[in-house]
């Protein structure tokens, strides 16, 4: 179980995350929603310890993650795999090596630095790639792949970390709708088949409602909503986004707008 207690992160005087507290049961699929700048990314980065908390604690299975140093810290990072909006793959390395990065915390340094990966790790990486139907392009350079393929490589990398938690920071924001579906489905499968906890930042309320068991809403660094997707009423959503509820739905309009129903210049754009 992951417990977050009074977690705060300040940049200068500004609190990007402000006294956030919640706990997450193993195996759940949690969506974190909120406006741009609400502190979603910072929250996830603190859990993975890529950002340093200013105050508060993060406990995982009773261990204070915020106090870890050195080897223990690296091991924790391996256990809480991160997936990024921009994929954060190493473009000049091939797909297989990118996936093998997920094994770095486990493998003795001399082996990884000389790229003498153990056979079983290679096998693990290949089977992860195969799950996403990417084994055939294992030798291609990562920067030659399309966005959807890159994000699947990133997920494969997360999987071979054999993590307890997957932290996904807007994993589909730079993907087209089709790849969106592929990636979200992949996350869902991992969550349901292997019971790996998924915490996922999402911009689109629609997606959040479709995929998550539980939603955490943030606004200006604070947790302002925490509950099942059904309990997130349109009124709450409007407040959360401080906007016309219509806009946050984010999907394309249902039918072709005709000239008459078309928004006047500057209204939609102003949103």
């Amino acid at each position, binding site marked *: 179980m992951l417990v977050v207690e009074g977690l705060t992160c300040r940049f200068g005087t500004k609190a990007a995350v402000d006294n956030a507290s919640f706990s997450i049961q193993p195996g759940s699929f949690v969506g974190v929603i909120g406006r741009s700048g609400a502190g979603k990314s910072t929250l996830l980065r603190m859990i993975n310890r890529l950002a340093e908390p200013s105050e508060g604690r993060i406990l995982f299975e009773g261990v204070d993650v915020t106090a870890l140093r050195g080897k223990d810290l690296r091991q924790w990072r391996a*256990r809480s795999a991160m997936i990024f*909006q*921009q994929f954060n793959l190493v473009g000049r390395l091939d797909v*297989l090596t990118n996936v093998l990065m997920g094994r770095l915390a486990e493998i003795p340094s001399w082996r990884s630095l000389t790229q003498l990966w153990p*056979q*079983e790790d*290679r*096998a*693990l990486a*290949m*089977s*992860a790639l*195969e799950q996403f139907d990417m*084994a055939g392009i*294992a*030798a291609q350079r990562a920067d030659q792949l399309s966005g959807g393929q890159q994000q699947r490589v990133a997920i494969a990398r997360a*999987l071979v970390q*054999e993590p*307890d938690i997957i932290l996904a920071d807007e994993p589909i924001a730079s993907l087209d709708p089709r790849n969106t579906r592929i990636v979200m489905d992949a996350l869902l499968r991992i969550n349901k088949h*292997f*019971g*790996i906890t998924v915490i996922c930042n999402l911009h689109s309320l629609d997606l959040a409602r479709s995929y998550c068991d539980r939603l955490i809403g943030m606004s200006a660094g604070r947790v302002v909503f925490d509950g099942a997707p059904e309990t997130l009423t349109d009124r709450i959503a409007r407040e959360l986004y401080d906007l016309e509820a219509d806009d946050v739905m984010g999907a394309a309009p249902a039918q072709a707008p005709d000239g008459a129903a078309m928004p006047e210049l500057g209204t939609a754009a102003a949103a």
Partner: protein
Amino acid sequence: MSQLPKPDTDALRTKYPDVFDRPASARLAMPAMILAVFAIFVFGLVDLGFSPAKLVSGLSQLGWITVMMIPPDPGSSLPAYLAALGETLSIALLGTTLAAVAALPVSLLAARNIIPSNLLRFPVRRFLDSVRGVDTLIWALVWINVVGLGPFAGVLAIALSDFGAFGKLFSEAIEAADRKQVEGIRASGGNALHEIRFGLMPQVLPVIAGQVLYFIESNTRSATIIGIVGAGGIGLQLAEQIRVLEWQKVSFLILMILVAVAAIDWISGKLRFAIIGQRAIA
């Protein structure tokens, strides 16, 4: 920890043999290259008469020299040193700026993404190579024939030899530039000049600024040309003090140059980051 199913190594191995048993050529290419590089290196060490014993005894000597350098003391020559430093800075600044101004248009002609034709680029690149290949000493002599002894000849000599280096470096910076921005300009109907002015220059300017400042810095400390053309120069003072083994003056001079270089380094950093700006938000 792991909830993943154990992968079936053997099945995967038969399915993707390349991944598990990479061909010997792929596996051995890198080690072989490293071995070759290292072998030549060792051969060089032996051929050039390196010996560990010499190294150890020399190191103790070095320690001894270091002790002699403390405390730094300019003696009575401080004004002369300051004048020399000022003169050197002037020569370096002027020469390098001239070189950069002249090299910019030529470097465009040497860049693959501007002049795709190998046939046109080849002579330009070889021209730059030749200018670089001619020793600065020779450029100094050439200019002495024109403007006589004095710092001006030094300025011109630096300008010419750095011109060759800048031409190469700038063209490489241009080659590394992002093509998308240039294409954006072209698609709006800009001509070749527009593409360079708006599409390329904003991208390569920080790189160029960094390199120019680095060369100013490097020319400030170089001893050779500036001395030859009869302009004194701080590097010459330094070389001379070492020759006559005035260690305290040596250390003082080194400190002086260090301060000047650190100042240029600081400006360089400021300028570069001012042009680069904050990183784009993701």
